[in-house]
């Protein structure tokens, strides 16, 4: 059974899953973010981990399509130019360039559309323009780049060439302040939405950093958030929040009320189906299994439920939307992307 969440104005329906656990090649390993390209292309950023020599090649960008075509991969773990150590966010500019933040190397890597490394910018520090664990990155309508500078508890704007423009925010709980912000997004008007992770809310700002409003209070109820990791906004003003600590995606309508809550509905991807075709005994045993077992968590109810029920979101770290009404949820601990559709 798949989720269909209906409000007066829209329906959000599970579509399909893209993904498969793979250290290299066709699949993902601890994906944390994705960028959308033309023609249904997805650039899925794999953080991998832990950072042992043998596992550095897990860190990469897997290029595939929303209809499960595999195109290739690029990138590698390491500290040299163009390599990743703690890759966190990825965004695509209008010219097709890809920008990847790295929270360990305190930089933003720039690649061309084919994954060729062009340059990086950024240096560690807390002065304007410097970075301390740059988490997410988003492209504003004017082509500038917004970076959530997590441990400096601020948002900074750069030109596409890495020139510092301005920033706002400091540590705190007041409006306009942040505690370890993570995801961010821009709407068509240039307003900036920030997942204020450890304050359990999403804040909205004008393009010059003026506080506009916020969504969410701490908790697991409707309208509440627990460590929101990512935020996206569509052209109708729906706000999509990866409610990471509650292992769900919460959708707020243009009126600010909760429009839908998604918990994950993953099914077998084409790549996974290929695996089971090659391993029929495993597929056979799976077919006789109850994949929705009663979970008896003693601790951290939502996380343990996600760990025990394979179809649910587990560690949703990113959510993106496209012009076709598709919603992409990066399911970091399940090595896949779950895709939903919004229907009017």
């Amino acid at each position, binding site marked *: 059974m798949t989720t269909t969440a209906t409000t007066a104005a829209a329906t959000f329906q599970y579509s399909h899953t893209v993904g498969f656990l793979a250290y290299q090649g066709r699949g993902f390993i601890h994906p944390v973010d994705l960028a959308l390209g033309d023609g249904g292309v997805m650039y899925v950023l794999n953080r991998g981990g832990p950072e042992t020599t043998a596992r550095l090649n897990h860190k990469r960008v897997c290029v595939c399509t929303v209809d499960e075509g595999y195109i290739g991969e690029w990138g590698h773990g390491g500290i040299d130019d163009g390599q990743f150590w703690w890759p966190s966010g990825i965004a695509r500019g209008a010219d097709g360039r890809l920008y990847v933040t790295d929270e360990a190397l305190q930089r933003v890597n720039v690649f061309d559309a084919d994954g060729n490394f062009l340059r990086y910018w950024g240096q560690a520090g807390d002065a304007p323009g410097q970075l301390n664990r740059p988490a997410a990155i988003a492209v504003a309508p004017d082509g500038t780049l917004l970076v959530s500078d997590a441990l400096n508890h601020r948002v900074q704007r750069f030109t596409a060439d890495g020139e510092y423009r301005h920033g706002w925010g400091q540590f705190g709980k007041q409006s306009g302040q942040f505690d370890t912000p993570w995801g961010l997004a821009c709407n068509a008007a240039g307003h900036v939405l920030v997942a204020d992770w450890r304050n359990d809310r999403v804040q909205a700002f004008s393009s010059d950093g003026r506080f506009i409003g916020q969504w969410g209070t701490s908790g697991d109820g409707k309208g509440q958030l627990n460590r929101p990791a990512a935020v996206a906004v569509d052209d109708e003003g729906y706000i999509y929040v990866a409610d990471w600590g509650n292992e769900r995606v919460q959708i707020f309508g243009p009126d600010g009320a909760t429009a839908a809550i998604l918990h994950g509905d993953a099914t077998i991807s084409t790549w996974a189906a290929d695996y*089971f075709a090659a391993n029929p005994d495993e597929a056979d045993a799976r077919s006789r299994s109850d994949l929705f077992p009663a979970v008896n968590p003693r601790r951290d109810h939502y996380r343990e439920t996600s760990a025990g029920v394979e179809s649910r979101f587990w560690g949703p770290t990113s959510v993106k939307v496209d012009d076709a009404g598709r919603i992409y949820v990066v399911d970091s*601990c399940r090595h896949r992307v779950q895709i939903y559709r919004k229907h009017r």
Partner: protein
Amino acid sequence: MTLTQNAHRVAIGDADTRRIAHLLRRAGFGPTRGEIERAADLGYAATVEELLHPEAQPDLEIEDLIRRYHVDQNSLMLLESSQSYWLYRIINTRRPLEEKMALFWHGLFATAYGKLNHAKAVVNQTHTFRRFGLGKFADILLELSRDPAMIFWLDNKDNHKDAPNENYGRELLELFSMGIGNYTEDDVKMAARAFTGWTIDNAEYMSIRASRDSFWPYGRIDWQFRYRDDDHDDSEKTFLGRSGTFGGEDVIDIIIQQPATAHYVAGKLYGYFVSDRPDEGAIGQLADEFVRTGGDIRAVMRCLFLSDFFADDAVRLGRVKSPAEIVGGTARLAGSHRFPEWTIVNLAMDVNFMGQEILNPPTVEGWHTGAEWIDTGNLVERINAAGIGVRDLASPGVRAIVDRVKAAGPALAPPQLAEACLDAVGMFEVSAATMDSLLAMAAPWGELRFDRADALACSESRVTELLQLIVAAREYQLA
């Protein structure tokens, strides 16, 4: 191995402080000087009570940060990730005895990743030890019997009404509660029958995945305990002289009432927290407390920490630290990894290289501890890792040590310097040979000055050099 085998002790500070430092070393993972001071102010008995009630302290306060920055420690799919997660807990816990008990029970009820291919299942088991580790032993055994990792580890998923598997029933008696010689082969068979039907969901599918180390298509799936009444043997059984239609709970109740169980558990606790060399009188005291309280581990631990045998000079600094204690304790001392850093995996690897793969013990008997932690190879690892751990002046704990040394005086001659460094590390007793080594290192430096700007950086650097020698000393290997 004791400190005083070949040399007399050089004592620093007062006896009460030394006693409380001993308590914190044994009940935790290497206290900082600040923690020792705080406990000394609180008093010994009150500190014991605080340790015995971890629930009064907050749980790991950086858990969300760990899971954010280490996605692999959110999924806990890989062994190194899960070991790293435990290191974070050891370093950052405000409930040191809870963590120490978890490590103790993990060694006693040794369950290994190597067979399960499911790291999070073993982590989940350690969470059970955190929750129940200071509670009633009956509850610990009951939770253990329901623990999916244990069910998988000792094949209880294959223990069926019509085809019993004795593996869990045997180890429950032999290794987990009573010890060999205190039960018969028939008791093993009856215990096994009592635990038929105690299994996990989707046992067939999960077994196939584990056997081929399959984490496809989407990573590991947490195992869930399931009791299947239709696969449970509810016929009459005679177990340890009593008869009835016993189930697993009844078997545990009977086990708890056995004097052998009290003695066995008391002996294990004594060996882990007091001394490698058994003292039947002391173990008897602990066993009596076990019986008196119906197997209340908290009460037994209180009895242990307040006992004369625990305070004995011969016991203090007489136990070799496990690798997890050395590595975790050094990080605590240095103040490193209080916030997620990718280098945590290096610490986990250090523990492995020293011979203790936490979450992956070598056999069902756990690790051989005590002096067996030390051989020529891993001693080098222990010394190197400790030295690297305290050499960075930017680490807040190292900075605090250096500042404390500086506070001992504007100018310190080698003897004062050595004493101030030892005090700042909380190492209040060393052998004369160790003290001689420290003085030999410091002698060429002459008097270190902290009151002159031109000498300060050099003096601070010298302190960190001496620190590296201190953690290389024999005494640092001991708790």
